[in-house]
């Protein structure tokens, strides 16, 4: 288990959980396909964390990426 912000650019990881306490943040992340069980591809980590889930590309603040547990 590690957190998304620690994953190197170019890797594929499986989402294990979301540690966020904000419901709006959780529902925004899940609407982009960032849900437990889903595979995401980490495209870049700077200047923001850039993910690809399916055909959706999403940019996240590093702090939010810290709340995504991957394994």
């Amino acid at each position: 288990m590690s957190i998304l912000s620690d994953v190197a650019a170019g890797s594929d990881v499986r989402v294990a959980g979301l540690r966020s306490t904000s419901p709006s943040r959780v529902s925004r992340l899940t609407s982009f396909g960032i849900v437990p069980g889903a595979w995401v591809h980490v495209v870049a980590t700077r200047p923001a964390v850039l993910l690809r889930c399916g055909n959706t590309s999403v940019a996240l603040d590093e702090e939010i990426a810290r709340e995504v547990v991957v394994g």
Partner: protein
Amino acid sequence: MSCSCEPLSAEMIETASQQQPRRMILVGNANVGKSLLFTRLTRRYVTVSNYPGTTVELARAKADFCGELREVIDTPGTSGLNARSDDERVTRDVLLGNRDADVILVGDITNMRRTLLLALQLIEHGIRFVICLNMADELPQSVPDLSLLSSRLGIPVIAASALREWNLERLKRAAMQPAAGKVRVLYGSEVEAAVADMNGVTRGEALARLEEAHALPIAAARHAAVEQLLDGRGDEHAVSGFRDALGRITMHRIWGVPALLFVLFIGWLFVGKLGAGVLVDFLQTKVFEAHLNVWARRLVDALVPVHFLRELLVGPYGLITMALTYAIAIVLPVVITFFLFFGILEDSGYLPRLAVMLHRTFRRIGLNGKAVLPMVLGLGCDTMATLTTRILETKKERVIVTILLALGVPCSAQLGVIIAMLAPLGARATAIWLFVTIGTMLLVGALASKVLPGESGDFILEIPPMRMPKLSNIAIKVAARTEWYLKEAVPLFLAGTLLLYLLDAANLLVRLQRALAPLVVGLLGLPAQSSNAFVVGFLRRDYGAAGLFAMQRAGQLSPTQTIVALTVITLFVPCVANFFVMVKERGARTATAAALFITVYSFGTGVLLHAILGS
């Protein structure tokens, strides 16, 4: 257009629109080509209006659906029906407030999962709809068979391409017979028990209320259901290699910087050189000064016998010779070239990438990358940009952006004048102006983010693929924005000129100049006459800047005086319209406090600059 049935003629649509036709609502995620589909389905009679009580725009148009008339409504892009933002609330209210309407759920065929997530929510709300999987032209392979998916959902699913106008007639026919769907997602015992406890609401409404407390289990169950519907088949990677690479370079932590500089350079060439240089020069000297104003003077001299009225029209503060010359010759070319450039940036998908690049800088001033849209739009029109601050999540961010727009972001009209004034002064003057303006935004933003209470919003932003902008789409937007701008600006130009004329006629202008002399002449080191620019600057700062431009051209301002005057007018409150929008959006107290602060700050900076630079 190969409809199997007789299409309605324009007159029939006109007559039939007297009665209220059945409604057809388009919903879908953002970036799925919904608006283009709307344009393709309707083609004419579009009206754009604000949803009651909000600034969210709804486009409506009458359209012929196989011989029957429908009122098509385009809703803002949404990612769910639980109304997290103004946009989403409007979409939800339109959907749930028109239970007898037909609905088309528009999705991106390369991104079926997100479309299906929305479809499951529509089914739970008992909405009757069809699914249009748009952007079939972007599929790398042929369109997959959708009949299994359709029968599993119990909803007609049609692949289409709004861009290539493929399958739209089939979509129209299908949309006449929407279905309620038959998939039922089970959410586990805890959520299901809570749903069962809520009487008198639909399953969808009950789940929407439970999302606050059970966001993750609800989302996970929906995703699992979508995977089942698709048999775990992945969405094919659709973006071509070149566009993908281009998209990545523009937000690369190193290569993104030269890419940004390149975009800025193109913008400067297009708006600065072509718009503010070539076109303004041509219109001002060749068209207005050499011909139109000469003719106008002759005509007025011949037809108007009263001196007072003649001066009002064609005098030094004349409505034609001053107001219209400024509005059309100086402002219009810059506004049009800027909105063209902005439209290309918008439709190419570059702006979200710019948001990623600037996110860290913006975080220091209490904002996040999403603030890029209102800030860049502010370079077109600050009033319009202040209205778009609603896309920001928190009140704190909205207040910060409102202040920064009013303070440091010159609108296109003003920018044109500024570029023209800086051109003869050279690099040092430009560097000073840039340093003061950008420094001001960073300083005031950082202070505001410390002083103002509240939180900044989350930076979670979808990055759509880079796309080739469609000229017809951009042309529509440029026309709408330019029209909006002219309606805002020209009346104020006329009012400002009238004010100057009346002050001059009553001999008050000289007195006002004398009254302002200690500040303008003493502290800023400017000629007394430049007070005129600041007086009209209260109405519109670009108009004020245009006055300074005229003085510089007439050799009445030294290079140092130009820099000081230019800096003050740049940092000034944009215009009366912007102030009213600030009052409307942020409240009278915040707006007045901001305007007072900006006035003091802009003159204070000018005084400081004069003290440093000398005269």
